[in-house]
């Protein structure tokens, strides 16, 4: 005789780490409570300001979380405290970066006026009122040096990558190691090297020298990214090319490189983004110049040095100009960065 088994209630399917409304409400209450306590703390102790507030929050929240969850047991309590600490730490890290973006925007936009991007400082001392002068010379100077440096560093970097991935020569491992080593050269040492050779030899600061210092800094970045991108080309394409009678040279230039052309452009852009903001090497090589210039044998302006030298003057207007230059530089870096990312997503989508 079979007994009909009463169907036991099947527990509702639960995804273990899915946040339920209960959890959200609980967390919300805890956060609010710690906010309140931190506020009280900042009023009563000397740890004032936003930082004090956040520190209070960072201390209170884990304690409150612990107190609330200990009733579930030690492990659960530790888990929740750990989660709150990690989230709080991540938030803490985001604050200064947000502050940088906001401060640069706020203070930098004060320097902006109609002609800011088209005028330079050849007749305007930095302490003059802000509606005079601009950053044209700095933009042009940076552009010139970056273009020259790219013309040298990009082909050389791609060559190194081709050597490692395609030619696979005897020194391939060695070249890789060297590229890694070169990527760690401090920017000021790169400047020092160009100073010791080019500047002293040719008797003066110049845009050439600045560009060459950029090359030392760009080359490893370009080589490394190009190598990664070259490795993405499937070997089948290469063997198909050889099977049709092509030489390695033809295979590389007509098949492999065109296939990842956008990746190579990305590596170039990343190299540029790396150097465009470097100040230290330029101090020793291209120095600074107040007028827009295309003379490569003379000192030339650049965005980082424009910022740096304006700061050194101590004057309020000059300092605001420094912020303005920072805003321009940040926008440039941001644009380059966005460009590189769209190109690389396009590459991976193919």
């Amino acid at each position, binding site marked *: 005789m079979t007994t009909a088994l009463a169907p036991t209630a099947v527990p509702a399917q639960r995804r273990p*780490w899915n946040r339920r409304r209960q959890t959200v409400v609980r967390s919300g209450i805890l956060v609010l409570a710690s906010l309140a306590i931190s506020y009280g703390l900042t009023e009563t102790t000397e*740890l*004032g*300001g936003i930082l004090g507030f956040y520190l209070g929050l960072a201390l209170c929240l884990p304690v409150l979380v612990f107190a609330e969850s200990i009733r579930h047991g030690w492990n659960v309590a530790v*888990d929740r405290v*750990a*989660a709150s600490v*990690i989230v709080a*730490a*991540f938030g803490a*890290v985001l604050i*200064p*970066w947000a502050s*940088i973006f906001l401060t640069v925007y706020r*203070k930098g936009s004060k320097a902006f006026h109609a002609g800011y991007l088209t005028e330079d400082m050849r007749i305007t001392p930095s302490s003059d009122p802000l509606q005079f002068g601009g950053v044209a010379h700095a933009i042009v100077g940076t552009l010139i040096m970056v273009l020259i440096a790219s013309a040298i560093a990009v082909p*050389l970097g791609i*060559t*190194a990558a081709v*050597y*490692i991935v395609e*030619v696979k020569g005897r*020194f391939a491992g060695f*070249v890789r190691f*060297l590229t*890694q*080593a070169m*990527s*760690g*050269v*401090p920017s*000021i*040492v*790169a400047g*020092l*090297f160009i100073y*010791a*050779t080019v500047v002293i030899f040719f008797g003066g600061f110049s845009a050439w020298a600045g560009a060459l210092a950029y090359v*030392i800094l760009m*080359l*490893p970045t370009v080589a490394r990214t190009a190598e990664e991108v070259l490795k993405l080309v499937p070997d089948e394409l290469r063997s198909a090319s050889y099977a049709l009678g092509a*030489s*390695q*040279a*033809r295979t590389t230039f007509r098949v492999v490189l065109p296939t990842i052309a956008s990746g190579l452009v990305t590596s170039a852009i990343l190299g540029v*983004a790396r150097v*465009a*903001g470097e*100040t*230290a090497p330029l101090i*020793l090589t291209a120095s600074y110049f107040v007028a827009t210039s295309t003379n490569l044998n003379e000192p030339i302006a650049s965005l*980082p040095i424009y*910022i740096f030298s304006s*700061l050194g003057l101590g004057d309020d207007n000059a300092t605001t100009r*420094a912020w303005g230059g*920072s805003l321009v*530089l*940040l926008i440039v*870096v941001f644009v380059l*960065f966005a460009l590189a*990312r769209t190109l690389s997503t396009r590459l991976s989508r193919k």
Partner: protein
Amino acid sequence: MTDTATTPERRRLTTNYTPVDRVFRGSMTAGALFSLVVLALIAAFLLYRGFEIFSDFGFSFITGEVWNIGDPMDTSTAVLGIGAMLVGSVLTAVIAILIAVPFAMSAALFIEYYAPKSVRTALTALLDLVAAIPSVIYGIWGYAVLLPIVEDWSVPLERWLDFIPIFDVPSGIFGRSPFLAGLLLSLMITPIVTSVAREVYGQAPRDLVDASYALGGTKWGAIRNVVLPFGRSGLVGGAMLGLGRALGETVAVYLTLNLVFDINFRILGSAGGNVASLIATKFGEATPYELKALMAAGLVLFLVTLLVNFLATVIVNRSRRIV
């Protein structure tokens, strides 16, 4: 007809390249070795220009803490030593690492294990963007925004902790300090360390993590017992990469740390400097002899960062190979 009796002799597998390809391969080799040439030249030239300094001062150049040009006409009166600056470089870099590593770990863990999947790419992109912020912008912000905050904080901090020597500031002058510089540097290197940490933590064996959950464990338990030990060597490598970057940083330190030639471990007080900012500061008005000393200092900095980066790469590669 196949030969059945004799075994074929071992054949030498050589590839004869066509003339076109020989030119191609040769030129690629030459281009690739260019970086060797540059690197070697860097070391050679700095050594050449700074050699006089090393022969005049020997080891005391590295350990001495006085920087006195003396009489510009008579180089024998100069006493030059980068000891204080080396200590400053190491001190600021160490502070930077000590602050950056815990935050980088938290950020990496957050992105890999706590953040909803939909924001993960956005956060990674944000990380890369922040890594690209130029150091001069960090410097100007550090001077304008961070300095007052740290100054405010140093006062009570020193009052409570002055029984520990490194927090004691007898001069009472706060402001630009190794602590400020170290804090700013930690901001600059956190993205690098986080990227490496994130990569390593993301490669933790997922099956072990799932097993930990299946046994009733918590997320933190899984992280503590599986992910963190797995990622330890990768994290060390990432930290060393950050260290290398911090050691060579010039402008950010220049703007947040005054140059004082005194081996100083009081991190809240206004004194210190690092080798890179020394070069940048003294460069403008250096006498020819002083210039040589700066080159020698650059060589020392170059070799130190080279060593650190080499170790870092070895450690990071070794941690990757385990995967």
